């Protein structure tokens, strides 16, 4: 570790808006800084090379939405410093019986990051955070709306002190409005926005929706979009950007057409389950075995003929109820029953193999173990094997977006609590061993 290389002052000082910005139709990207001159020298600690090399992001995040956003950035070489505390820990650090405050879930969303523990209840802890922010490009947080202002870290103050800092706040219901302090988790956001209502089989009496935290991932990728937008904004104006992202609104943005059905046509969208207007037959069908399912979709006449050939159910071709798409749509139920009679005698993998060879779009409803062994995902390098020295080896999914030619890898397993406190204080803030010791004695670094 490069103890003898304290961080130099930032080279890219604020510039007046527009300077170095020629405009014109094709953007020439002036104003984007090169790699940071103060990048650490130890290969284990150094920011990875990559499109975002030299970008430093401070994360005050917990659970999924915030940490997932910075995980996305880390895949492309951004340096992510997660600021935590024994007093205010990422909820995933103790979700299961944790070892070293590490859990499987924490280990997923905090790969490639460094952990700095600071007690932000103490002024000295906040002072260190401030010094870190002065040397960082962005701050992303998903605490309750009142937490940051409580620490004196409201946007006007942050912007005055660190005019180039991009600040992404991502509360469940936003940083403003009468419900800004309401508590939500991923499933609650699905419930609020209409996803839980729409994610159901048609005509059922019970609302089930999804038990998942799906909305957290939606919020996370939108926060990553907004943070990148902030960096671009800064590159051209020299100014930071304040992002107020409501996880509910980001999730709702993906239901835009459903809202417009109401706003424009006065018609309410209803759950359709696995049926899609354009497919007949189309949906999810039972296969042989315990809880085995496949989806099959037939849109064109060619696909219908291929389905008849592949299944060997030639009587369908003669059945007037299945003569064309209009008839097949009208007799959807009868057709689904006939098709399921065929699929339910075969394993899902065989159904998909036969239909795929015939040119009919079909898929197996895959479970985790099947994804883990999936030759396609393996060939694409999507499965990341992470062997954690302080935890246990686990395979995780890789990056959901790629820049071809840059491999988005897991460079480093998720950190233990405070694993990088000393390294960050020394290499990024340039503190001496004595100074670090003093902060430690004052219980600032817990």
């Amino acid at each position: 570790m490069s103890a003898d290389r304290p961080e130099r002052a930032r080279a890219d000082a604020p510039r007046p808006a527009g300077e170095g910005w020629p405009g014109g139709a094709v953007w020439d990207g002036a104003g984007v800084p090169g790699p940071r001159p103060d990048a650490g020298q130890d290969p284990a600690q150094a920011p990875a090379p990559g499109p975002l090399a030299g970008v430093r992001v401070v994360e005050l995040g917990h659970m999924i939405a915030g940490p997932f956003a910075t995980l996305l950035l880390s895949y492309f070489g951004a340096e992510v410093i997660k600021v935590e505390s024994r007093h205010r820990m990422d909820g995933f650090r103790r979700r299961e019986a944790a070892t070293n405050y590490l859990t499987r879930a924490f280990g997923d969303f905090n790969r490639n990051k460094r952990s700095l523990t600071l007690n932000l209840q103490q002024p000295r802890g906040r002072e260190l955070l401030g010094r870190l922010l002065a040397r960082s490009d962005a701050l992303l947080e998903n605490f309750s709306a009142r937490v940051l202002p409580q620490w004196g870290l409201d946007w006007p103050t942050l912007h005055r002190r660190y005019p180039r800092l991009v600040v992404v706040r991502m509360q469940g219901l936003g940083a403003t409005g009468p419900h800004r302090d309401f508590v939500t988790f991923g499933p609650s956001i699905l419930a609020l926005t209409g996803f839980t209502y729409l994610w159901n089989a048609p005509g059922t009496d019970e609302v089930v929706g999804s038990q998942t935290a799906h909305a957290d991932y939606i919020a996370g990728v939108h926060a990553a979009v907004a943070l990148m937008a902030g960096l671009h904004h800064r590159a051209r104006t020299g100014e930071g950007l304040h992002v107020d992202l409501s996880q509910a609104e980001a999730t709702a943005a993906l239901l835009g057409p459903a809202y417009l059905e109401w706003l424009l046509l006065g018609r309410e969208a209803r759950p359709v389950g696995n049926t899609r207007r354009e497919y007949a037959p189309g949906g999810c069908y039972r296969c042989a075995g315990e809880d085995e399912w496949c989806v099959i979709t037939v849109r064109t006449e060619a696909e219908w003929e291929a389905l008849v050939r592949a299944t060997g159910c030639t009587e369908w071709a003669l059945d007037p109820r299945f003569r064309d798409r209009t008839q097949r749509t009208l007799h959807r139920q009868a057709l689904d029953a006939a098709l399921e009679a065929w699929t339910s005698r075969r394993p899902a993998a065989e159904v998909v193999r036969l239909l795929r060879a015939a040119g009919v779009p079909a898929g197996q409803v895959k479970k985790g173990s099947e994804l883990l062994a999936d030759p396609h995902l393996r060939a694409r390098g999507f499965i990341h094997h992470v062997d954690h020295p302080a935890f246990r080896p686990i395979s995780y999914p890789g990056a959901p977006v790629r820049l071809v030619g840059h491999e988005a890898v897991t460079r480093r397993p998720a950190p233990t609590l405070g694993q990088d406190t000393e390294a960050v204080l020394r290499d990024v803030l340039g503190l001496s061993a004595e100074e670090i010791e003093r902060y430690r004695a004052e219980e600032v670094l817990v």
Partner: protein
Amino acid sequence: MSVRRPETAALPEAGPRLPLPQPLRGVRVLEVADRRVAYAGRLLAGLGAEVILIEPPERRRDAPTPADLYFRSGKKAVTLDLAVAAGRHTLFRLAAYADVLLVAGPPGERRRLGLTFEDLHPAFPRLVVGSIADFGLSGPDADRPANELVAFAESGLMSISGTPGEPPVAAPPHHAADLAGAYLAFGVLVALWERARTRRGREVEVSVQEALAVEEHTISTASDEGRDLVRVGSQHMVAVPGSVFRVKDGYVHAYVADTMPGSWERLLEWMGHPPELADERYRQGLYRRAHVEEITPVVARFFARFTRQELYLEGQRRRLCITPVNTPREYLEDVQTRARGFVVQARVPGHGWVGVPGSPFLLNGHRVPPAGVPRPGEHNREVYLGLVGYGEEELAALAQSGVV
């Protein structure tokens, strides 16, 4: 009916109002029409990029759906037939003036159209190409017959969605593809950032399958415990109570877990400490999860006495994570949705001024309003004459032969 924008509420966080940021002003994006890249285009347009939507000429005949209106807003629209050589030639003429090209489809189809990164990069080394395919652009499944529903089935997320014993249930139509578009927009922003330094464009690639497979620990659980997560209806993996409850006038969702310390105790206090839930061990989330069948009915009986709004407001007052299960309309009518101006007024052809969902986040306190919604081909003259530099006669000839 339209949802009126409330008086602009004070935005205490934003401080003095800064102008509307347009981080991508001057960036030109070509979007080859496909639902899978439509949301990416909308996001980039909202950030100030000039997005030119390229649709097949026959689109002019279709009546626009709400989805068309939503995804077209803020874009320019031209028509171009990419199935013929003259159309592809025009696209290449356009690409010379573009920073980003968004295109969807499996690699085989892209090769047939001559629209792979390898086709484009030598001619336009600075062009960022954003690609979405159901199974990505590489690997043995890349060219299999597929669509969004097939990709969703093979993502792992479907296997854990729905009621046990019943068929798994996919998310609403097109949702997986739209979400993939959000990842694409992120990748494009990263590639533009890199390009500013390297002066080279790159291919950004999203597989719809992978965009969903990152979620919900299906892969890591199988790897770690050798077991598969299963469908459990609305019951959350750890929270108890942590599911949908039927109440007086509909449904609510409740989430009480150790990640919110004290919430179980606060719930008991509200319920008046029912004797059935007095067991001290219930204070531990893991223990509750193992006894969900004993706990949930007691909570359900209590909740059934209230309305959705009563449970929402009183629950949140007690710092309990309870939320109503809304229809899309109910979300729009929610106090918070209105106070933050999620729905903004926009002019939509054939509808006049109506409420339309605005941008998914506020930048310096601004909700980016959706700009106008163009008709297919509305910007043909502006783009083909003004940008590509065709003459009137050339354009007329292309129109005559049905290329534009």
